[in-house]
């Protein structure tokens, strides 16, 4: 049995006027069918670039090295023509902003029919029937009337449901959801996450859920990767990570988040400084400038991967100290 998705040493750099911006450094992911993986991090940490690289949708100024193996085939060496056959068919993506990712001048029915006719070779009437079935599947009422609606006639939650129907149309092996609920209200967010979860379980797809919201990740994934400045700083089983936050950044991120029920007595913990500039990253650990544990060698050399057992891995020079501060005094 071949691994469904195997990303090896992926590096992405973007050529800019100010020099190369290293968006992703030395990324490794393996996923099997039916697994759910969460990628969490702040803006500019490389989450979305990773997703775009998988889909072969990187901007033109991007340069990649490494391998992205989908069932053994390297996607980075594929031609655009070959990628068109994979994209939407074996791998599909749900974007953050459902308003701008749907075409406003076509009916939603026509947009769902497009991949069905292209990838599955259905006739027009077959594709129409399938589009109605898919809309019904994602919980849109009156699907046979809604297929004739344009995106502006639907609410934000319904548009995101249409995006999900589109992504599901060819039963992909991997579904990538890039901040699928960030533009939605909490109640709608819960409905959409429920929908994605049940569809993924029924179809046995692998799901990559990208979000900056630790709560969304904690409740919807089995494994999680925390990214900072283009590198994975901590990864492992979701339940395990949230009970044993180890990397100084993960600890800070968790402490900085306002949580329901914490009241107003306590002050929020802050991580000093701001997210790093990807053009002038330090040679070593990208978190050095904001890390309370940073010591002499941090800036110069990249820390190695330490395994804490149960597949929980952390990249940090001062691992022992980081472990000792798990009870939350690191930033106080």
């Amino acid at each position, binding site marked *: 049995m071949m691994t469904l998705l195997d990303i090896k040493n992926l590096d992405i750099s973007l050529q800019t006027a100010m020099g190369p911006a290293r968006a992703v450094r030395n990324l490794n992911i393996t996923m099997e069918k039916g697994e759910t993986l969460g990628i969490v991090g702040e803006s500019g940490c490389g989450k979305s670039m990773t997703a775009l690289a998988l889909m072969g949708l990187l901007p033109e100024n991007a340069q990649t090295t490494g391998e992205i193996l989908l069932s053994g085939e390297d996607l980075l060496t594929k031609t655009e023509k070959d990628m068109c056959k994979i994209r939407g068919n074996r791998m599909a993506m749900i974007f953050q902003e459902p308003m701008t990712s749907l075409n406003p001048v076509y009916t939603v029915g026509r947009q769902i029919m497009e991949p069905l006719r292209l990838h599955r070779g259905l006739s027009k009437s077959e594709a129409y029937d399938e589009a109605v079935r898919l809309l019904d599947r994602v919980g849109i009422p009156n699907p046979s009337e809604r297929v004739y609606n344009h995106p502006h006639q639907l609410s934000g939650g319904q548009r995101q449901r249409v995006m999900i129907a589109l992504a599901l149309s060819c039963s992909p092996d991997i579904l990538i959801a890039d901040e699928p609920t960030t533009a939605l209200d909490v109640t709608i967010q819960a409905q959409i996450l429920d929908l994605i*979860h049940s569809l993924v379980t029924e179809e046995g797809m692998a799901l990559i859920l990208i979000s*900056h919201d630790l*709560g969304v990740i*904690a409740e*919807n994934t089995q494994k999680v990767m925390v990214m900072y400045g283009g590198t994975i700083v901590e990864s492992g089983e979701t339940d395990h990570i949230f009970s044993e936050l180890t990397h100084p950044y993960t600890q*800070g991120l968790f402490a900085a988040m306002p949580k329901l*029920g914490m009241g*107003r007595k306590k002050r929020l913990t802050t*991580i000093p400084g701001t997210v790093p500039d990807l053009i002038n990253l330090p040679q070593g650990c990208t978190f050095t400038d904001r890390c309370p544990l940073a010591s002499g060698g941090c800036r110069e050399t990249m820390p190695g991967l330490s395994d804490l057992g149960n597949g929980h891995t952390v990249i940090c020079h001062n691992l022992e100290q980081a472990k000792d501060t798990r009870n939350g005094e690191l930033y106080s």
Partner: protein
Amino acid sequence: MTRTVLEVNNLVRHYPLPKESLFAKPRFVHALNGVSFKIEEGQSFGIVGESGCGKSTLARNVMALEDTDSGSVKILGNEVVGKSFDEIRPLRKDFQMVFQDPYGSLDPHHTVGRIVAEPLAALEPLTKSETAERVAEVLDSVGLKPTDIQKYPHEFSGGQRQRIAIARALITRPALIVADEPVSALDVSVQAQVLNLLRDLQESHGVTYMFISHDLAVVEYLCDEVAVMYKGSIVEKGRTEDIFANATHPYTQTLLNAVPQPGTGRHQVR
């Protein structure tokens, strides 16, 4: 004896929809259906609700940025509804606003010094040196350096830009700051810095906040009182602790249950 900074009474705002045909009756979006509340000095009043529930319409009406259909808004006892812009201008130094988008709300052509000083130029006749003094003072209180005066907004990160926007709101020494989703465009680690800043400024300057957010955890952290809005009306209002501990309205309960919580080991029950 604390004074009432903001008193809103039975505020109504309906937006007309385009007519479906020439003879059809005009239809309306009922953005605000008789909203009333009061904020005492030095308190933070949170307003939560989904998009489209009328939160931002409420902010614009309190700030007298658009015409109100009926009702009254009193800021420090002065009625603002039904007055012309010229009549309201002298009152504006008492109420200022911080917007959601720190990228769109600062003029990219102006230096930070000019952006921050602008409300003063409109509201208070001060000499150049007095203005410079006030600018330096507010920049210091929001944690920016005096050298930042010469810089332009693009040289700052999102969190720092929101500090500039807060400095601009603070410079007239207002009694009330209306903040419409001030942290929702920011990253988690930076969001915490801005939230702590807002709290510190309340302690040092005694400002009153009307704080609009869709994020319940943020409101719980910052606000003394909270009002839950749904379809243009306030459905529940009270002390933050009480609302979050014993929400009585079903809509508030739905909102609270929908918030994903990390670290509780909870998975969505499906």
